[in-house]
């Protein structure tokens, strides 16, 4: 087999390979293949659940390690310790040995224990500290309360005795009952409860106490000025100190219960001021001890986390790869003796050599005598579609893949899209200045590519960044079309001598009409004299409308041509004679003819002929409604116009039934012929399972694959296509017919609607041009009217405004809209002409892809 070069034009040539890997080196082989990233492994155990597979145990273990690593990461986030970036490692992509993984797992286990115990003790200490702080506040505040309350023992008792007396009466009049101050509360059987409570609960707390105790209490409270930090949640809570005096043990017990249920923390306070002072002193010493212990714990924890942070990213990558390796190994099947792993994978044929040499290397390293065997299998399965992309082509390929997966070996529409997509965009976006802005932005993104790739971008910008090469092409083409439209920020670009001269009047003034410089046509783009004229829209509309039709015709003919290439490649001549040829004739006899007449009309010097040019629109209408007649029979576009139009119309009409009937009837004829000869579809009557049969038959049934006969019969399934399913479809005439009817109707109607659809090129370019003119006139033109210092200031301000609006509205907004329209022209108008697109995407097992999808930040 001569290896062909893989290009972007068609999917790479894929082959289904079977690997026989010695059990001992399974992990190493898969890991090496993951680094290579060119094999799409098929799941050979799809009927077993995730738990029944061979390596579930290993995956579970790795899951645990991954969880531990995530825990370290979250702890580092909490302590705001930075993780060493993945890009700072020299080579984090070396696949480790199994023993190293074990080591890593053990290490992470012990580290987790250490970190969590440190954390735990830190949290307990912190909690203790909070408690002590609260207690200190209570002690401090309580002193004041006691002093005040002592002065009011009389009233308190009074109020308790007398239900009518209002509570807290004359709080301000403290100091009145100094005589009673020395009397102890206990003597009067007054108990108290002291504690702290979150500030937002204080109102509810008071209300509940009041209701349940019917006012039989004396409550005092004050706010703690600093917020208290909850060590568990790290949230700041502002709290109040309260102290409640009440009469009787039951009531005190009740108050305790209520306070605890409302989340208050109660602290013991002594009513004796001496003892209280001692308590405060003790709390203070304990607090300072605690602070030093806390500091030590924290610094140990931080040091530990910093040490982890130095290699955490690498560990994460290693574990991720390891897990993916085992998940892939789970897709493999075993031979009967469970000595050999059997894998099936799709791989690009051109990479087989590389795969083989990689496997040999792994084998040599392991020092195994049994080689890993790579077999190519012939199969009827559809191979996956694979295009090798690079930085430049990736975004274009994504545009096409977003529409549908390309059929295997079909023409890849992404290749022409590299040019046509930005070009059609530019036709709508044509402005030299705006093109420069786009190009500059794209070049900046390409220049800082590496840096931007590594930094986190917001969603919108990352999308633009992803399409930076599209923007680059768009910028180039926009500059070109801008030059052709002679627009730069809506101003003209007088590059060449104009083909128009203003008529000179007798009084020396100019205009309003112009005459043509004899025998001279403006060589490049639109003449700049058209700018700001009264009838420039009349001219540019006619020009842009025809431009759209002509470009649309070119694009669609080009796209239709690919269907011929596809039919030739897949050698289905019926698609050429039944679809392509009649379709092409139909399209060209109507719209090809229209394009021809447009160009022809331009080429004729109607003034020299002394003839009024016929209207093309009316011509087309007459061609259909009254074939054979012209609007002005005495003034035809060319001689014999009527006759030619009748012939073209007949051609188009004849093509419709051909398009409709040829393919389905031909397919039916083929099918019947095959049946008459006695052929049956595979699995139509009997389904023979290759796995149940003996070796010989199995091989014959599967199309004579390479056999691998030097092994004993233990490995009987060796060259069988494991999990072979019948993909054969039965021929159903009605289905084919209906399909073709739909195709015919769609094609004929679409020829009309798609041609009209290309008029969006005109509409959007008109809108873009008008908008930029309006923007100029509303800002810069007004600013030019001012002179002097004010003029200069206004100029600067207005210039920035104009520039900002140009970028935001004209480049970003208009650009997005033009891009979407260009996208539509590709997906609908162009791809409907040739795209088959029922392919299977190639999803290789690749560590690189894996790490791109789930980045280790």
């Amino acid at each position, binding site marked *: 087999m001569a290896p062909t070069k893989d290009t972007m034009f068609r999917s790479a040539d894929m082959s289904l390979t079977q690997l026989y890997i010695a059990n001992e080196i399974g992990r190493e082989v898969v890991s090496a293949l993951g680094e290579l990233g060119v094999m799409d492994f098929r799941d050979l155990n799809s009927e077993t659940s995730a738990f029944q597979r061979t390596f579930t145990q290993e995956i579970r273990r790795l899951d645990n390690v991954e969880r531990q690593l995530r825990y370290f990461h979250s702890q580092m986030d909490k302590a705001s310790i930075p993780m060493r970036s993945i890009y700072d490692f020299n080579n984090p992509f070396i696949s480790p040995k199994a023993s190293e993984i074990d080591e890593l797992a053990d290490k992470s286990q012990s580290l987790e224990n250490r970190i969590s115990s440190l954390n735990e003790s830190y949290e307990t200490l912190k909690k203790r500290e909070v408690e002590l702080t609260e207690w200190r506040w209570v002690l401090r505040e309580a002193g004041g309360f006691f002093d005040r309350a002592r002065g009011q023992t009389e009233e308190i008792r009074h109020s308790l005795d007398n239900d009518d007396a209002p509570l807290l009466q004359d709080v301000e009049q403290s100091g009145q009952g100094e005589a009673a101050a020395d009397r102890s509360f206990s003597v009067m059987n007054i108990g108290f409860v002291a504690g702290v409570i979150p500030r937002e609960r204080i109102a509810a707390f008071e209300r509940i106490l009041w209701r349940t105790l019917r006012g039989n209490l004396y409550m005092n409270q004050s706010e703690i000025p600093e917020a208290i930090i909850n060590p568990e949640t790290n949230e700041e809570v502002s709290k109040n100190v309260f102290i409640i005096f009440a009469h009787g043990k039951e009531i005190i017990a009740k108050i305790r219960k209520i306070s605890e249920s409302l989340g208050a923390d109660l602290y013991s306070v002594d009513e004796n001021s001496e003892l209280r002072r001692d308590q405060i002193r003790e709390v203070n010493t304990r607090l300072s001890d605690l602070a030093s212990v806390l500091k030590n714990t924290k610094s140990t924890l931080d040091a530990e986390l910093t040490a982890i942070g130095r290699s955490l990213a690498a560990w994460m990558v290693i574990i991720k790869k390891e897990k993916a390796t085992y998940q892939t190994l789970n897709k493999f099947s075993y031979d009967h003796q469970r000595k050999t792993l059997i894998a099936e994978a799709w791989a690009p044929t051109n990479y087989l050599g590389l795969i083989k040499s990689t496997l040999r290397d792994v084998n040599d390293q392991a020092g195994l005598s049994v080689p890993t065997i790579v077999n190519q299998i012939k199969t009827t399965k559809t191979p996956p579609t694979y295009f090798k992309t690079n930085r430049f082509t990736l975004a274009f390929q994504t545009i096409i893949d977003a529409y549908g997966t390309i059929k295997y070996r079909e023409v890849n529409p992404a*290749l022409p899209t590299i040019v046509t997509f930005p070009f059609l965009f530019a036709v709508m976006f044509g402005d030299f200045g705006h093109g420069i802005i786009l190009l500059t932005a794209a070049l900046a993104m390409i220049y800082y590519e590496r840096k931007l790739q590594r930094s986190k971008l917001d969603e919108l910008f990352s999308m633009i960044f992803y399409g930076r090469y599209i923007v680059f092409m768009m910028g180039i083409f926009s500059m070109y079309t801008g030059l052709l439209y002679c627009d730069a920020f809506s101003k003209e670009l007088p590059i060449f001598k104009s083909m128009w001269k203003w008529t000179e009047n007798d009084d020396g003034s100019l205009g309003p009409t112009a005459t043509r410089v004899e025998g001279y046509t403006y060589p490049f783009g639109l003449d700049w004299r058209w700018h700001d004229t009264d009838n420039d829209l009349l001219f540019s509309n006619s020009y842009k409308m025809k431009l759209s039709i002509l470009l649309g015709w070119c694009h669609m003919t080009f796209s239709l041509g690919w269907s011929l290439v596809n039919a030739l490649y897949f050698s289905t001549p019926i698609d050429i004679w039944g679809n392509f040829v009649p379709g092409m004739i139909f399209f060209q006899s109507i719209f090809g003819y229209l394009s021809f007449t447009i160009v022809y009309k331009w080429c004729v010097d109607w003034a020299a002929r002394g003839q009024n040019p016929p209207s093309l629109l009316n011509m087309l209408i007459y061609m259909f409604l009254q074939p054979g007649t012209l609007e002005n029979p005495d003034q035809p576009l060319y001689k014999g116009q009527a006759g030619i139009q009748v012939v073209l119309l007949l051609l188009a009409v004849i093509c419709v039934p051909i398009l409709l009937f040829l393919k389905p009837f031909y397919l039916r004829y083929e099918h019947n012929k095959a049946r008459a000869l006695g052929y049956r579809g595979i699995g139509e009557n009997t389904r023979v399972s290759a796995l149940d049969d003996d070796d010989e038959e199995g091989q014959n049934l599967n199309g004579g694959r390479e056999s691998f006969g030097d092994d004993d019969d233990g490995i009987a399934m060796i060259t069988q296509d494991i999990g072979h399913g019948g993909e054969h479809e039965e021929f159903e005439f009605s289905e084919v017919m209906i399909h073709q009817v739909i195709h015919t109707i769609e094609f004929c109607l679409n020829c009309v609607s798609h041609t009209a659809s290309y008029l969006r090129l005109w509409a959007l370019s008109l809108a873009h041009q008008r908008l930029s003119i309006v923007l100029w006139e509303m800002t810069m033109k007004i600013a030019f009217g001012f002179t002097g210092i004010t003029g200069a200031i206004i100029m600067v301000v207005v210039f920035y405004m104009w520039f900002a609006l140009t970028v935001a509205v004209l480049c970003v907004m208009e650009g997005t809209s033009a891009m979407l329209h260009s996208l539509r022209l590709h997906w609908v108008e162009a791809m409907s002409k040739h795209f088959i697109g029922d392919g299977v995407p190639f999803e290789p097992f690749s560590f690189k892809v894996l790490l791109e999808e789930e980045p280790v930040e």
Partner: protein
Amino acid sequence: MANGWAPFIGLIVLAIFCAGAWFGSPKGENQTIWRSTLLLSAVSMYLMWAITFLAQLHPLISPIREDIRNLGH
């Protein structure tokens, strides 16, 4: 009428460029991309230029500008 030949001259230039791009494209795995991109770009740019040129070859209307009197001389 000498002007009318310009699109054909352009066509020759285009053909020469395309031939140059076809054979001059850097060899390697990206050769197809180079070739297709250069050729298609050249063709589409030529097409648009030619259409614009032809549209002005025998213009049916000429510019009219009332305010030109105030601007001139």
